[in-house]
């Protein structure tokens, strides 16, 4: 292979030896000389990726590496550094146990060099040393030890490939070869602070569809496909990804147009915030960069002649459901095929042969024909992929909870800046992505465990539908959320401005999905529970523990019932009853108040009572 593997530039940080080989003592050098992987291009990257190293970048590839290393570093923006600490101290987790994991023994270091002599790529190297990379902070100074070496190395590789592959960052060998260290530093300053620019872009994908039937929820499958398509096309450019939002680093504007075209082709519109700045001015949130441009990109015709598609209402309806579906997807016998193609379906049902009538049994149960556009028709014709939801419908399930987790990127930035006391870097965001993905996996597996796989439908990685026996079970979801948060983001549990929020809509299974989606999209509050869209519980994340505890306690059902009935007549009267020390149910109410008030307002407390009572 013998190509520079940018991710491996910091492997000397895995040892207790100096990161800059030119600072090694003669004896040290002598000890390891014969084992050093000097013939590999990667070795050049290891030894020449810093402007201040004895060996500095002297060719384009190592210069790109030097720039990528800076972009992927924690160093630049965090406040003052303190003494050395060997443990990781992620902002959202708090400090880990102090442990120096670096390779100290000569044999271990030789083994590392020998392995590097085999010229491994990043995946090969991770197979051997991933645990070490993940446990060693990139920077050991207190306050800087907030990201792992693994994240830094991976991110450096991404930046290196972005810089190297784009025409916007050309660097001829003549510009750097044979230059003195000072000349290279000047070149770096010019490129880093002025000439070279990158675009930081946040894209949120949205759909116009108002899904009503289970089959129409295929729009979420299409969203997932779109996200996969973009991540396959831009594997190095994605810094943070949720199920409907991307934070990207892009070298040229044309890539934003390309992403927007992909979205439009898949039937989505896109909310974009972008800013193009010199590398030295880049921040992970384009919203906080100067010159940020915020726009909603659609691709819609100025007018549509009727009929309009009944699902998305943004394209001409050219297909009839279910007639066109039957003709194109169901194999009818030739005479039935002809009958259906020439007459309205409703008028020929009785004339169909028995075999075809049996084939169409489910479709014929559908209430009314609909006019659909090509995209919505294609999505519906795929058939439902949400098998559980479909089964619950058939089994006559009554209650479900729609659960949506949301990561608010602006809040994430604010919270992390307040926790770190400075501006956050790309590496902190990349580190967060690792934990966020693991948090979602943990949440999903715990939800499966708690409710059983058959009673959970995973619609997106952050969006679930759960079959409930009673609405009170919604609090079990909160318990799972609390446990997963405690494991991955314990610091956020104490934050008033938590970037992670949860919204739950408890509803009958027949409650229209697009209404559920509207409620989820408009949900306000860190913890939000809606009961059929009519009543809500809102609470801050700081109250999560108390809320789950309060829900697990037993209450006198008649007292809760009385309270909710009074509230139906008068909210004020319910408040007075709740606070009345002479009321015969005061013991129950004071117990509720102790756990919930003042984190929850009265309206939320009454809804809580209604849910618990169910």
């Amino acid at each position: 292979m013998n190509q520079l593997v940018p991710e491996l530039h910091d492997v000397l940080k895995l040892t207790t030896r100096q990161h800059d080989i030119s600072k090694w003592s003669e004896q040290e050098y002598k000890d390891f000389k014969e084992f050093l992987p000097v013939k590999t291009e990667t070795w050049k990257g290891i030894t020449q990726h810093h402007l201040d190293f004895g060996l500095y970048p002297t060719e384009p590839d190592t210069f790109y590496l030097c720039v990528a290393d800076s972009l992927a570093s924690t160093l630049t923006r965090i406040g003052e550094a303190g003494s050395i600490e060997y443990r990781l101290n992620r902002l959202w987790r708090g400090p880990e146990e102090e442990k120096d994991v670096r390779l100290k023994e000569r044999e271990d270091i030789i083994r590392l060099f020998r392995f590097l002599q085999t010229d491994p790529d990043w995946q090969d190297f991770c197979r051997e040393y991933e645990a070490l990379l993940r446990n060693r902070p990139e920077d050991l100074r207190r306050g800087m030890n907030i990201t792992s070496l693994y994240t830094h190395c991976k991110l450096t590789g991404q930046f290196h490939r972005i810089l190297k592959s784009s025409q916007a960052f050309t660097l001829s060998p003549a510009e750097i070869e044979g230059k003195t260290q000072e000349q290279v530093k000047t070149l770096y300053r010019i490129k880093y602070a002025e000439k070279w620019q990158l675009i930081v872009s946040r894209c949120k994908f949205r759909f116009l569809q108002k899904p009503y039937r289970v089959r129409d929820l295929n729009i979420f499958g299409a969203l997932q496909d779109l996200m996969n398509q973009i991540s396959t096309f831009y594997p190095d450019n994605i810094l943070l990804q949720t199920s409907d939002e991307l934070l990207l680093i892009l070298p040229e504007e044309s890539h934003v147009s390309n992403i927007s075209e992909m979205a439009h082709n898949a039937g989505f519109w896109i909310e974009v915030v972008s800013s193009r700045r010199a590398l030295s001015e880049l921040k992970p949130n384009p919203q906080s960069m100067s010159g940020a441009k915020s726009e909603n990109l659609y691709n819609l015709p100025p007018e549509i002649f009727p009929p309009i598609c009944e699902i998305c209402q943004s394209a001409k309806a050219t297909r009839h459901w279910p007639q066109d579906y039957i003709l194109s997807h169901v194999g009818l016998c030739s005479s039935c095929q002809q009958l259906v193609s020439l007459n309205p379906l409703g008028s020929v049902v009785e004339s169909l042969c028995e075999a075809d009538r049996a084939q169409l049994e489910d479709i014929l149960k559908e209430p009314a024909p609909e006019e659909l556009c090509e995209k919505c028709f294609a999505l519906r014709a795929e058939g439902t992929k949400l098998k559980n939801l479909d089964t619950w419908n058939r089994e006559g399930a009554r209650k479900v909870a729609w659960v949506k987790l949301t990561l608010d990127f602006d809040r994430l930035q604010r919270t992390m800046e307040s926790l770190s006391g400075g501006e956050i870097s790309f590496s902190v965001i990349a580190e967060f992505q690792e934990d966020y993905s693991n948090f979602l996996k943990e949440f999903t597996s715990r939800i499966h465990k708690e409710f059983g796989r058959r009673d959970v439908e995973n619609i997106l990685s952050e969006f679930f539908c759960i079959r409930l026996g009673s609405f009170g079970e919604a609090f079990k979801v909160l318990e799972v959320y609390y446990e997963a948060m405690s494991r991955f983001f314990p610091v956020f549990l104490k934050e008033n401005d938590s970037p992670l929020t949860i919204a739950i809509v408890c509803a009958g299974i027949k409650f229209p999905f697009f209404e559920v989606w509207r409620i989820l999209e408009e949900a306000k509050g860190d913890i939000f529970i809606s009961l059929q869209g009519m009543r809500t519980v809102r609470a801050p994340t700081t109250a999560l523990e108390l809320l789950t505890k309060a829900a697990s306690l037993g209450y006198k059902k008649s007292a809760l019932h009385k309270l909710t009935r009074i509230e139906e007549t008068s909210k004020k009267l319910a408040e007075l009853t709740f606070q009345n020390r002479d009321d015969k149910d005061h013991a129950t109410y004071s117990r509720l108040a102790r756990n919930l008030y003042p984190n929850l307002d009265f309206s939320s407390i009454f809804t809580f009572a209604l849910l618990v009572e169910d």
Partner: protein
Amino acid sequence: MRFIEFDIYSDALCMGERTKGGLFRPCCRTIRYSQISGALRKKFGVSEIHSAGYLVNGNGNNKTDYLIYSPRERAREASKLPLRMEFLTNVKGKVYVLENDSTTVFPPQFEVFMGAFISRGFGLCRLKRVKLVDSDPPKQGILRTRLPMNNLETFNIRKILKPVYGYLFEPTSPTSGVYVLSLFEGSEVIAPEFLISPIERR
């Protein structure tokens, strides 16, 4: 340009959107241009009426309710599948009408019918004139109504910063019409203050 501000009240209003899945007809949560302008044009018999509005929530206003209704196909003497209709009760809102020769003569209080199910007691709206408002100076905010793109100038919408698009039906004759691209509630715009709400940053 100036607009006449009206308070609008109704006991029950069904500003229906398109039926979903042949079973459910949701209710619009704002007073769109096509709906109120159409109602006023019909009431006063003039075409030069441009108006839009929105609902004012709070104090138990604009509560959602549902009605199961079985449409009947008279020709076949058969009932269709029952439809679940969403409607609003105790409706309160604001309506803004562009001031021109046709609209200055509007009485201070009047009634119009708007929306669906008028024959079943829905849709009677009382409008009460409040004051004249100037559309200048426009401000940045979130649009509270739905306006066709070709009518944005009429409403002094100076700039669309972040649009939310959809389509409104525009009749072209008593029996036909076309869906025109329109700016929906939630769009970030520079517009007259009375048509927008402040931008909420979480």
